[in-house]
């Protein structure tokens, strides 16, 4: 599987961070890191508040100086270039539309700064306004537009500068649920149409999984894992990623033996599960403590027949929640760790799960994924 099938033909929008870090006085916001974002890729920086993703974005934008390291766009070092000179454009979280200018004038702003004559720049702006399907609103003021329309103006205003990279700082965070989903697909569409590199910062994992070609998970100023959404979701590198991306159950236990390419891991409450070895990572000998994860949607209720010969885990149920597509069953294993599974509701027709019950769950052991320790 190639990493990305949306790369541009040339490398003009390729972003390279080489040993880039940022310190504010004594506080290290971003530790020295390396990252390559291929040209034309839609990249999401994902992480909780304070993980450094916004700082990274702002360094890329030219609104912060990097303390160390080189930032390269399209092969050239851009550390000391202004945003305009380095070929980036930013869409701000609150959009920052100029309230005293019409939509058309907002979009024409960058050309006005460059001294393009009035008629020409307004015509160019008009074209861009058409491209984002806001023609009827061209002469309205921002206050008259809906949230989604305002975002399109902000996008048009940024894209008219013909940037190599478009930066988006939590563009969907302030929108309500319905609008968020709609704007997500609009962003993908615009990315497809313009073909430039997008770098999108968010703390919402579903959003990142949904839009990105490349997801970069960050924690406390470091990149923890970067890769395609499917990679992160199926093979999270460590417990932090597994928990942040969501949809996994984490188990902790001790290796008791090896069985071919698998490890036998014993949970505190006695169950023994089979976990495939991970060739990247060495501490997989007997008596090592390990963690592994399983996707919640791979877990099923153990029916009576399967209990005998399969490896099952008993769970004390705390809560069930009907979510339409699945029923979320939540509780604690007998070892005391958190547990949740997504069960199809047609697996449950005769039996409803009651809070307080202890029931066994079972799944294909190849779904167990060994996790590296959090560093």
């Amino acid at each position: 599987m190639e990493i990305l099938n949306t790369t541009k033909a040339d490398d003009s929008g390729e972003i390279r961070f080489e040993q880039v870090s940022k310190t504010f006085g004594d506080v290290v916001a971003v530790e020295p890191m390396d990252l390559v974002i291929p040209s034309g890729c839609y990249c999401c920086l994902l992480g909780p508040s304070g993980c450094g993703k916004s700082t990274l974005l702002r360094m890329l934008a030219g609104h912060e100086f990097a303390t160390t390291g080189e930032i390269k766009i399209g092969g050239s070092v851009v550390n000391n270039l202004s945003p305009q000179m380095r070929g980036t454009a930013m869409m701000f979280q609150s959009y920052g539309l100029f309230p005293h200018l019409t939509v058309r004038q907002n979009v024409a702003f960058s050309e006005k700064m460059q001294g393009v004559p009035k008629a020409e720049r307004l015509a160019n702006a008009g074209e861009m306004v058409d491209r984002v399907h806001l023609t009827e609103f061209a002469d309205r003021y921002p206050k008259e537009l809906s949230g989604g329309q305002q975002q399109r103006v902000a996008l048009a205003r940024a894209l008219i500068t013909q940037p190599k990279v478009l930066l988006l700082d939590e563009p969907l965070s302030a929108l309500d649920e319905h609008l968020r989903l709609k704007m997500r697909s609009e962003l993908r569409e615009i990315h497809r149409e313009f073909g430039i590199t997008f770098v999108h910062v968010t703390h919402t994992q579903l959003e990142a999984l949904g839009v990105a070609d490349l997801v970069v998970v960050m924690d406390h100023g470091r990149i923890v894992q970067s890769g395609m959404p499917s990679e992160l979701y199926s093979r999270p590198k460590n417990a932090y990623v597994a928990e942040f991306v969501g949809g996994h159950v984490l188990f902790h236990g001790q290796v008791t033996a090896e069985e071919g390419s698998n490890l036998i891991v014993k949970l505190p409450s006695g169950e023994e599960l089979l976990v495939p070895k991970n060739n990247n990572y060495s501490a997989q000998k007997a008596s090592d403590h390990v963690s592994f994860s399983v996707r919640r949607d791979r877990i099923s209720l153990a029916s009576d027949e399967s209990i005998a010969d399969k490896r099952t885990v008993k769970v004390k149920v705390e809560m069930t929640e009907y979510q339409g597509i699945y029923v979320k069953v939540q509780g604690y294993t007998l070892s005391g760790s958190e547990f949740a599974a997504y069960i199809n509701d047609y697996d449950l027709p005769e039996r409803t799960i009651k809070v307080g019950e202890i029931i066994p769950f079972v799944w294909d052991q190849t779904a167990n994924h060994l996790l590296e320790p959090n560093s």
Partner: protein
Amino acid sequence: MATLNGRRPWTFYALSLFFVLYVIFIYGPMFIVFLLSFQGQTGGLTFPMQSMSLHWYRELFSNASAGDIPGAIKRSLLLASVVMVVTLVISVLAGLAFRKPFRGSTTIFFITTASLIVPGILVGLGIGQLAFLVGVRAHWLTTGLGAQLTWTLPFGMLIIFAVFGRFDGILEEVASDLGATPWQRFTNVIVPILFPGMIAVALFGFTLSYDEFARSLLTAGADNTLPLEIWALMTNVTTPKLYAIGTLTTVTSLLVIIISMATIFLLLRKRNAGTKSSE
């Protein structure tokens, strides 16, 4: 606070009545002066009105009239204009300065607002004494100007602060992202958005100066501004000419206010709430 069935409680009517009475209270005398300025030639300072005439207005501008009203008007207008411009410039600069914390900013803020509280007569006395100690003569365009500035600058500064407080700082970063130099940011983003506030500051600067009395009394020097001239004439003049002066100067002030307020209103209506965050 309507009641459940949609009708207003009796308190609404009582309070409205009070409000109307209050408005009459503060406007009433103005209208009376306005009326009486058209007093007939033989009429006195109070009612009844003998007849309606423009006699006293003509008196005002005739050469025979006591005092130097036209001169005072000219001086007041000129001084008010200068004060307006100086107040505006200094206030905007101060507003820009206060966006980032710097050493001494709190002190300067308190000293400037203290200038609002200190009675004008003391400021006037102080400037007069300083001029005396230093050996400078008081003049309306130097010491008078300075004295009036101590009154207009606090107002101007407070207005600019209020406007900057509502100014979305992100807009400057946006402009910079789109290629604006600091000067371009100032002229294309800050000034246009601040413009209604700037008109308000200019308004305050002009009218506060035009009507200023206490500070000017001791600092205007030999030539009087209009309020000072009126004050001087008040003891001598016992005719409705005083009302004519009063009406003229009030009408001037009102014109300035109404034009400014209308401009501000029109500007603000167009562009209130332009960003997502202010929805």
